[in-house]
């Protein structure tokens, strides 16, 4: 009996255990099970579609570091579910994204790599240096090519997302190598190489559009295949590596992917202009650059020297690259030319074969082909900007940037130092760029300007007068080319002068609002102008509306004028005959009207104000709460913008006052 009884409590215990275990170990699921298979209620909606970050970690069986790396490589980002089923303080990933990571072989590769890293650390811990070295040498390499193609199935996609890669690569190109932050010399050099290759391409194909020197660095904007790519290159100075609040692993992980991406993009771009990639540089120049670079690294202690040498080396490298380009590109062009000749020949043959009654169609065909070959107008314009100009850079000038920028706009550059294509004494130099308080020896044949002149010319797309940029002077303000002044509502003075100069360069005078031009043939131009002037008129009207309290009658007159102007515009557009008598008539009527209204409105002036307000209020009454919120938010935004502009104007007024006082004193 005893024997029979004994097992029963045991079996009872085991039964209980089997019931409770799933509850206790609910979190640690077996890996084969998907998250949606959790026992219990079947999940639906957002809870089924999204998982939180910690859940994802468990699901993939990776640690945070590895997960971060995977996310960075795969380009997986958190998404915002409509309803956050776990609360606001969680990060949500889409389940599909996570399973997308899970099925990628890169996960296994990374795991293998971390396992391999353990071997190395073990060898090191045992002081087996030989083994450690061998292991390190044989480390498995992870290839990201497939991921690049997966993330950017089309080349245009890659170009669209190129802003961040370029910025990071340019940043790392200027960072000092550091063992503590795990920034290797090799990587810094690779970054520098990649950035120079990119710059060389942009410069040679004249794709650069805008440059802006800011406190943070130099912003460049290029247009490649219709995509505007903007990147920030830090100033060529020693960068500080902050210890806290920066996790370098994150940066390096991003950099790893970006390096691969940029290399492939460069390959594609070089391929598109029939140049071999990676470029083979002039051995002499490369040698000098290579000689300088390691030197610069070893001299890392004395920073000034380091930076200088680095710059010199970099510039030499860049020049070497451009030289390489020149030769290759020319050959490529020649090839192009021969091809074109061939095609023309073929076309001629075709023409012979075709019946002669359709020459027009064929001509058009030829034209179309020619157009395709040609660069777009912007590129042409950029190419011509510094044509027939020779620049010489002094020692103190930021060489890397200018060596990139000037050739991009068709100029020829040289510098003081090794490997320069021509000397300072060259008589054909038109501009010498200097950045020092005074210039000792002056060649009369050339103009001495500060570097800002180059950038301002590029942004304005005209050759600006050099007086303001002479040596020792404080240059005029450097304005951002990325700002639409009209939209901001505030136009700095210098922007206006530039505008005027541009107009002067085009031999045109800006049309004034209200002055109709009858002799304009081009309807498109007219339309554009009309639009412009109308916008201005509206702005003026708005300004006047604020002055409403001061003089109501004036407003009415203005309104009448505006109306008249609009009518005129309409008539113009319709192509009606424009008669001065009609204008007179209009004016008379409006004058009468305004006179009549004046008397009536002046007595009930406050009422008018109220009614204006009321009218605005009325329709907001009936808005739904959501739209009303949106409306209010928009209003607040507009008001803020307005406040900013008014602040600027106020400051400007104050400054002007001080200046006038100063001049009076003097």
């Amino acid at each position, binding site marked *: 009996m005893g024997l029979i009884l004994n097992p029963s409590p045991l079996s009872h215990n085991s039964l209980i255990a089997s019931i409770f275990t799933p509850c206790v170990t609910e979190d640690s699921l077996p890996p084969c099970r998907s998250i949606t298979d959790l026992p219990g209620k079947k999940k639906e909606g957002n809870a089924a579609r999204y998982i939180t970050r910690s859940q994802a970690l468990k699901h993939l069986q990776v640690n945070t570091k590895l997960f971060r790396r995977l996310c960075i490589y795969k380009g997986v980002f958190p998404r915002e579910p409509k309803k956050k089923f776990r609360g606001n303080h969680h990060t949500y990933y889409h389940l599909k994204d996570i399973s997308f990571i899970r099925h990628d072989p890169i996960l296994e590769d990374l795991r293998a790599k971390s396992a391999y890293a353990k071997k190395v650390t073990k060898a090191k811990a045992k002081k087996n240096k030989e083994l450690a070295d061998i292991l390190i040498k044989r480390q498995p390499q992870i290839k990201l090519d497939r991921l690049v193609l997966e993330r950017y199935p089309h080349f245009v996609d890659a170009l669209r997302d190129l802003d961040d890669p370029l910025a990071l690569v340019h940043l790392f190109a200027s960072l000092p190598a550091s063992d503590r932050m795990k920034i290797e010399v090799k990587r810094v050099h690779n970054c520098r190489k990649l950035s120079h290759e990119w710059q060389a391409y942009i410069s040679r194909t004249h794709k650069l559009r805008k440059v802006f020197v*800011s406190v943070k660095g130099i912003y460049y904007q290029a247009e490649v295949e219709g995509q505007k790519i903007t990147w920030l290159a830090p100033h060529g100075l020693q960068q500080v590596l902050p210890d806290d609040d920066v996790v370098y692993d994150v940066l390096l992980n991003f950099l790893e992917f970006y390096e691969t991406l940029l290399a492939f993009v460069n390959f594609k771009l070089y391929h598109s202009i029939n140049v071999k990639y990676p470029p083979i540089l002039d051995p002499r120049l490369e040698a000098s650059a290579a000689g300088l670079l390691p030197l610069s690294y070893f001299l890392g202690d004395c920073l000034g020297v380091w930076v200088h040498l680095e710059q010199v080396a970099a510039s030499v490298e860049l020049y070497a690259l451009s030289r390489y380009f020149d030769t290759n590109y020319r050959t490529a062009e020649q090839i192009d030319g021969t091809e074109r000749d061939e095609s023309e020949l073929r076309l001629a043959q075709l023409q012979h074969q075709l019946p002669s009654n359709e020459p027009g169609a064929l001509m058009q065909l030829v034209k179309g082909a020619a157009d395709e070959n040609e660069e777009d107008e912007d590129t042409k314009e950029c190419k011509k900007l510094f044509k027939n100009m020779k620049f010489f850079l002094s020692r103190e000038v930021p060489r890397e940037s200018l060596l990139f920028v000037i050739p991009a706009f068709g100029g020829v550059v040289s510098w003081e130092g090794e490997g320069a294509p021509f000397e300072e004494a060259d008589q054909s130099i038109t501009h010498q760029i200097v950045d020092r308080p005074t210039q000792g020896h002056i060649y009369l044949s050339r103009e001495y300007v500060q570097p800002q002149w180059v950038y301002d010319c590029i942004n304005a797309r005209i050759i600006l007068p050099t007086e303001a940029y002479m040596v020792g002077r404080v240059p005029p303000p450097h304005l951002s080319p990325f700002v639409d002044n009209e939209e901001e509502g505030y136009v700095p003075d210098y922007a206006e002068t530039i505008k005027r100069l541009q107009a002067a360069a085009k031999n045109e005078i800006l049309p004034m609002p209200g002055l109709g031009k009858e002799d304009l043939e081009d309807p498109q131009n007219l339309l554009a102008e009309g639009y412009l002037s109308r916008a201005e008129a509206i702005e003026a009207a708005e300004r006047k509306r604020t002055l409403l309290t001061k003089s109501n009658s004036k407003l009415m007159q203005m309104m009448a004028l505006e109306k008249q102007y609009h009518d005129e515009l309409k008539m113009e557009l319709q192509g009606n005959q424009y008669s001065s008598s009609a204008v007179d008539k209009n004016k008379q009527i409006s004058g009468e009207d305004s006179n009549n209204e004046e008397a009536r409105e002046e007595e009930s002036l406050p009422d008018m104000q109220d009614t204006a307000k009321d009218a605005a209020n009325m329709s907001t009454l009936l808005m739904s709460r959501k739209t009303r919120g949106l409306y209010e938010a928009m209003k607040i935004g507009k008001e803020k913008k307005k406040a900013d502009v008014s602040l600027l104007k106020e400051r400007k007024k104050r400054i002007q006052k001080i200046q006038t006082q100063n001049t009076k004193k003097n």
Partner: protein
Amino acid sequence: MREGKKGSTGASSLKKKEKLKKTKTNQNHNEEDNNTIITKKKNTKKTAKKVQFEKQEEEPLQKKKQQQQQLPTTDSQSESGSESDYEDFSEDDVSEDYELLRQSEDGESESSGEEVHGNHSDSGNDDYHGLEDHSNSSESHQGVEESDSSEDEVVPRNTVGDVPLEWYKDEKHIGYDISGQKITIKERQDKLASFLASVDDSKNWRKIYDEYNDEEIELTKEETKLICRLLKGKAPHAEFDPYPDYVDWFKHDDALHPLSNAPEPKRRFIPSTWESKKVVQYVRGIRKGLIKLDEPKEEEQRFYLLWGDDSSAAEQANRLSYIPAPKPKLPGHEESYNPSLEYIPTQEEINSYQLMYDEDRPKFIPKRFTSFRSIPAYENAVKDSFERCMDLYLCPRVRKKRINIDPESLKPKLPSQKDLKPYPATCYLEYKGHKGAVMTISTDASGQWIASGSTDGTVRIWEIESGRCLRIWEIGEAVQYVAWNPVHELPLLAVSAGQDVLILNSGFGNQEDQRKVKELLHVQTPTALDDSDNMASIVSWHQDDKHDGIRLKHFKTVTSVEWHRRGDYLSTVMPADILLFLSKKLSHRIPFKLHGLPVSSVFHPTRSVFFISTKKNIRVYDLVKQKLIKKLETGLREVSSVAIHPAGDNLIVGSREGKLCWFDMDLSSKPYRVLKCHPKDITNVAFHRSYPLFASSSDDCTAYVFHGMVYSDLNQNPLIVPLEILRGHKTSNGRGVLDCKFHPRQPWLFTAGADSVIRLYCH
């Protein structure tokens, strides 16, 4: 037999010797008894040693005896052995048990085996057979001297297994032997014979009957001893020694090393030929260039045309949509190294940033450097790009539609106000005369007169057209509410002031009307007393001689008075109760339970339905059935006033938080539309009787006029358009417009202000 006897006698003689020795030792004991206890112990040890010694001596003797026992071939030997054993046992010297056991061991086992065989061959086996068996058993005993397992391994004769013998109860046999023969039950002796036999047999106490095999088993002496030992709790086998002496197997003397001290063999000093062969192989390989050592790996990653043909790139339909990260904001003028002067904040402004909240503080303070060479390195370059990277992989991305539209386009399209004319828009007349705030106004059904009540304790009647004050009643108390009787023929005026409601004769109308009115206003005090005593306590009807009317006395202040459309009912609202009065001078309390204090009440314009609003809800009652029809949830904090559309299906509610609710009762019990128009309390709301207009007046000194069109088509929702904001009243004591009423026929609005003025707004 002789030899066996000799053997036994030999053995017995030996034992006798031992006995003698023992007695000697005992004697020694006795001699030394006088000594101390310690010595006694020593002695006992000595005796033990002696016993051992004796034992050693005995061993060869035993062997001899065994040899002797092997020699005889007769069966009877066993019997004699057993006999001797028995004798020994019976001698009962406990100290000698051990030795005795040793001696008798072999004999016993043999005897037991013999017995079995004897029983087995009871059917008549010849001697030869038994001899053979015997020799076998003796051989086995020689092989394993100390094992006594033969006893355990006796195979049961019966092969039926572990079945109850009851099953064979009726059979003559009890089972089958190994060859399949039936084992028949032996003839049992009768009890007497068996008893006698048992008495005679001295070994009877050791005999057990085995029912299963149908035989009697005689327990051997050994077996009995085993049982004895088990009972004592000792090990069953006597020869088992729980505390054996330690035997030191290792020889300690004469050993320099623990293991072998042999010299290293030669082969260990000779290089392995296999290895040398391998080395030669490698060396050849290296020389020939087949094996390359430390070859630097091809560093350069091979790049190729990744996007060869864009058209071929397969679209992955299964993937989630990729949301590109928003591009960083492009820098403005202020980020320039040399911005215009106006972008640089003054020192005071920079200081003022310190007072700002972190979120509001500008992230970037513009600086100006006069030359290119003076630009320093940007200290936050790495940090900025790190933050950007963090954003790229950690920020949730959502696709959001950014609308870049003019905010004005968000406003709903309203029909133009011109089309909705006429509506009151401009102030046309002001009725001045009151000394205090005008609390309430009411328009006459004919549209000629307007009555007003004020806090100065007067009720006035004005002519609408001229603004002339026609009549004044001095009530003496602040007037809360005035209401004209809606019936044209009964120009009565109900006035609530304090706790009283007065029904006054306005004095308009022709002779006949006046006569009727006079009749109506005559009240006999006793009739009031005749009413149910409950009602009398709440309200009492009195004749008011001073004003020539009726005075209804309540026990609390009356906040509002409302006439039924036919003019024969009247309702008054007290903060605690609502009463319905019949024109037959009867009062009736609302028989419903209200949740919350009543605020105001309205009669349905066409049906016998009654609306009561509490602070939160509005309850709709059927007066005929005396039943609650509907409950409207306003969702407001505190309702202040209610008005009903002349068609009776729509209701507007004004609240103290300045919200106006429009209820479409066919649609839902929730508001169809809520308009937040007034910043302060809404004091009153009013519908126009014929025009699609409604108005609200508020303490913020404004009155709103709305167009509220109710379509007869039930599918079309009512159209609400705000039309006009009427201003003009001035605030006093924090109160603005206190009442608003429409003219019964014209689209005119009267407003009563706290500034003691009544205004008329016309179209």
